[in-house]
């Protein structure tokens, strides 16, 4: 069990999160991909912690989990809000950026 295995796993997980973030239209999937990416970084932190023999890495990972929880709350709140506005969880429906403004 060498660190390289963990590094490989971290890379794969991060990339998978990235893929999911870019490919899917369903907002929940996007949210969970983001979580996946953050979690892979947590894994990396734990690996470093063991590598260096210091508990600092674990502590940071712990704090990261708290942050992830906060972010999860907000993300889900936003999804609910968007759903109330457009009755849809398709990210392609939220295109107000390209709507023309009325020239006053």
């Amino acid at each position, binding site marked *: *069990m060498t*660190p390289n*295995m*963990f*590094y490989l*796993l*971290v*890379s*794969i*997980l*991060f*990339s*998978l*999160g*990235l*893929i*999911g973030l870019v*490919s*899917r239209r*369903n907002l*929940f*999937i996007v949210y*969970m*991909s983001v*979580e996946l990416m953050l*979690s892979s970084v*947590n*894994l*990396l932190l*734990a*690996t*470093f*912690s*063991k*590598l*260096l*023999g210091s*508990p*600092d890495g*674990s*502590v940071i*990972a*712990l*704090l990261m*989990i*708290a942050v*992830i*929880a*906060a972010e*999860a*709350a*907000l993300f*889900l*709140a*936003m*999804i*609910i*809000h968007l759903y109330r506005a457009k009755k*849809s*969880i398709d990210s392609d429906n939220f295109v107000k950026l390209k709507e023309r403004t009325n020239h006053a």
Partner: protein
Amino acid sequence: MLELSIFVILALFMIGGSVAMITNKQTIFSAFGFLVAMIGLAGMFALLDSRFLALAQIMVSVGAIVVLSMLTILTINAKEESLPHEPHKYKWILVSTILVMPFTFLLYKTLSSFGQNFELTQSFTSKVIGKTLFTNWVLPFEIVSILLLAAMLGAIVIARKEEKEL
């Protein structure tokens, strides 16, 4: 040898769960995949001698986050036909995979330039973690708690129903 096989199994859990999460059409099934991945992650943490972290992971990530997600998904309760219609899902996934591969490779190469050997150390029990947390990392700890408070308030504000003028 034992560690290696446990690692492989847990890795398969994680990767399998992630792939399932990415590719599934139904939201709930994706959430299940995510759940499996998080549990695998907790196991990984344990494998890395961070026991407290593993527990915290299960409590927060699995217990709170996944449950919350499922609640939200069920609340929204999107019907089959109102789910996003993604005709080119696999094409997008393929393209993204190809694009991401150099990055993955780069990431791996960069990471592997760090240490190569695990030192035999203590395992990080709650005692060790607690000591470090409340001596070296007190300030970030406090800030994170404020962050959680803000997030709570923010979530309430964003998600509440509009009040009608009476």
